[in-house]
């Protein structure tokens, strides 16, 4: 009850602040330039927010004259295409939608325009402080704002409230409780066909990102200065890999949890676990908040109205550190339409347009959006999302130039341990050794 009161109070204050901030509507005719005849190319991930983003982007032509061509890509293809093109100084792209953890790599490749001056000059429209701090921190690199948040995700634990009610169970808060409940629901004759839990185990980036996301809540840390609550510059002051006993225990834990998953769980990634949960055969899964929308579409989901969300669990003695992640919009350094690109970013991420986007299914990335009555009505998990955004850990995964390869290394070694090809200890030793070599070669570690 106290928690509910606390959230209501916070949201009330946020709503009040938002209403004050919204007191003056933006006059776009004064804020935006005339970009008639310009076409802005925006490569973007094909995540569930692509439709509202594309639809709303179409309206930019009415307010600023420029056409916006949102070009959807899969995760790996987006990274490779964007990085390859911009490092070859291509002006094919104007605005780049990038995963926030790629920021260091893209800056090193000379891809991103520093937006610090533009944001500072237009802060009355941008209202940077209204972005959820747990995520907006990921749009900053070495003290400068290079990008603007468009899709903030937080990891939540999704559970079938109908099954939990029928069984008289409460959602888990710790790893042990999660395991007990997963065991309870798996192959339980009262819940035929249901398995207890599923998460990402597939080799490479899927298992790699998953492991990074669980590690802080397991009481571990990936590198020496990877502490919660420190400044970004302190976070990257000592990158010595520190996968230790907590990492070993976490691998063992994740391996034991595979017993409560469906067939083929060894190769599950984001799409497969989302599809499995939506099929109605899984009692619990952890997913990025953006996936909640997909589970709530009657045409593709058997669990509409039958699931709730709760905070990311944690190990005994550790604290829940909900991973923050998601997408940011940046200006291609080699674009020939930089002013139009910045105007588009300013417009699409503004409070007014962002609220429309969140109502249509876009991930709420502004504090003011959480108190929007229509958002709250459309998306019942908004309170949990807000709570996660408050406790979120922005630096749960590294964001420097070697990030992609380091995540893959973790994903390969952890997957080998999960399928029994090596022990958890061997996996952790291999990760530490390979990360050290990679960081040294990249000049990030002496």
């Amino acid at each position, binding site marked *: 009850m106290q928690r509910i009161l606390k959230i209501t109070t916070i949201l009330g204050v946020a709503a009040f602040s938002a209403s004050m901030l919204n007191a003056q509507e933006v006059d776009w005719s004064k804020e935006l330039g005339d970009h008639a005849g310009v076409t802005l190319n925006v490569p973007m991930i094909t995540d569930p927010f692509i439709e509202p983003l594309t639809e709303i982007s179409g309206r930019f032509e009415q307010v600023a004259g420029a056409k916006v061509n949102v070009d959807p890509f899969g995760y790996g293809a987006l990274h490779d295409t964007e990085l390859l093109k911009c*490092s070859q100084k291509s002006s094919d792209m104007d605005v780049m939608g990038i995963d926030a953890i790629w920021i260091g790599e893209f800056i*090193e490749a000379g891809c991103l325009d520093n937006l610090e001056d533009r944001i500072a000059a237009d802060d009355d429209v941008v209202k940077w402080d209204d972005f959820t701090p747990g995520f907006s921190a990921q749009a900053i690199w070495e003290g400068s704002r290079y990008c603007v948040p468009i899709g903030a995700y937080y990891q939540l634990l999704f559970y079938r409230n109908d099954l939990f009610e029928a069984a008289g169970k409460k959602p888990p808060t710790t790893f042990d409780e999660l395991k007990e409940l997963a065991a309870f629901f798996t192959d339980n004759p009262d819940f035929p066909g249901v398995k207890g839990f599923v998460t990402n185990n597939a*080799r490479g980036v899927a298992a790699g990102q998953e492991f990074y996301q669980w590690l802080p809540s397991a009481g571990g840390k990936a590198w020496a200065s990877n502490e919660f609550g420190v400044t970004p510059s302190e976070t990257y002051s000592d990158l010595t890999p520190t996968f230790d006993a907590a990492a070993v225990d976490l691998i063992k834990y994740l391996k034991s949890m595979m017993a409560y998953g469906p067939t*083929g769980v*060894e*190769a599950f990634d984001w799409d497969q676990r989302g599809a499995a949960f939506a099929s109605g055969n899984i009692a619990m899964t952890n997913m990025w908040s953006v996936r909640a929308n997909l589970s709530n579409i009657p045409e593709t989901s058997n669990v509409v109205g039958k699931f709730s969300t709760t905070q990311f669990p944690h190990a005994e003695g550790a604290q829940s550190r909900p991973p923050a992640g998601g997408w940011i919009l940046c200006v291609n350094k080699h674009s020939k339409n930089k002013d139009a690109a910045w105007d588009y970013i300013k417009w699409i991420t503004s409070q007014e347009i962002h609220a429309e986007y969140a109502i249509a299914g876009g991930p709420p990335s502004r504090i003011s959006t959480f108190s929007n009555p229509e958002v709250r009505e459309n998306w019942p998990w908004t309170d949990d999302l807000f709570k996660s955004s408050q406790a979120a850990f922005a630096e749960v995964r590294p964001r420097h130039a070697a990030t992609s390869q380091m995540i*893959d290394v973790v994903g*390969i070694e952890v997957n080998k341990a999960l399928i029994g090809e090596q022990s958890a200890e061997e996996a952790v030793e291999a990760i530490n050794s390979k990360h050290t070599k990679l960081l040294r070669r990249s000049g990030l570690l002496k």
Partner: protein
Amino acid sequence: MAKNSGISPVAQMRVTKRHLWSSDRFQRIAFILPTSIFLLCLTLFPFIYSVYLSLHFVKMTNLSKKIYAGLENYIDLFNDSLFTTGIKNTASLAVTTLTVEVLLGFLIARILFELSSKRGINFLRSAYLVPIMITPIVVGVAANYIFTPQLGIANYLLGSVGIEPIGFLGIAIPARLTVLAINVWQWTPFMALLILAGLTSIRQDIVEAAKVDGAKWYHIMFWIEIPSILPIILLGMTLRLIEILRFFDIIYITTRGGPGDNTMVMTLYTYQQGFRYFHVGLSSASAVVILFVSITVTTVAVNLLRRAENNA
């Protein structure tokens, strides 16, 4: 000389020029030149540049910054268990795929040959070639749907005969077998087609004579058919071997080298180093190694082919 022949120097120059233009040598050069330029620009230069890059530490995101590395990329390559596993897996895939394809291809070709006088056989032959015509990426995507544990038709069919579902792409041996099965499904028709052509070319009077002499079907197969079509089988194996050495698409779509490193192949490693991590130096070293492996293997195969042709 001009004095002796009574031709003026200008006229002699004209004759020499005409001689040059019409000479065999010049014609040869003229014919070879376009191909040589093509090869030089699109094959030799990229190869030399790859070798050059393989001797440097360089990232594709910053090509202007190259640090000379000597043979360090090659040393790193062979110290990387992922690459050596890739070599082993490629070799194992080549041996198993070729064995299954030749055996299955021979069986299918034999059946098609026996049915050659039947009605509708031409349609059956053409239909059988469809898998070769499908883009490997499409095959990979379709295979992903078929073998998805929860919603795939493979587990549905197994379930209908009472077999428990299998995690085809998540467990080591099923994943290897699935990749093998996809490859065999797509390319066995090619092998069958070649063998069928070979069987058709065997003189039937020899076969009839053997039958008159009391030869059984297996005598005919081992003593007449197989020796006669051996050069064709070797040709098919050589072509397939080259194809398998650059096998990439299906693994990229279905398993991405997993589970663990069980389906990691050399080409996937090269791709990942070059186009995912942008380590152009290491990726080029890997490409150069693949090229030399391919040349060595192909040379051996071609020599075997020549020997078989001479014996046939």
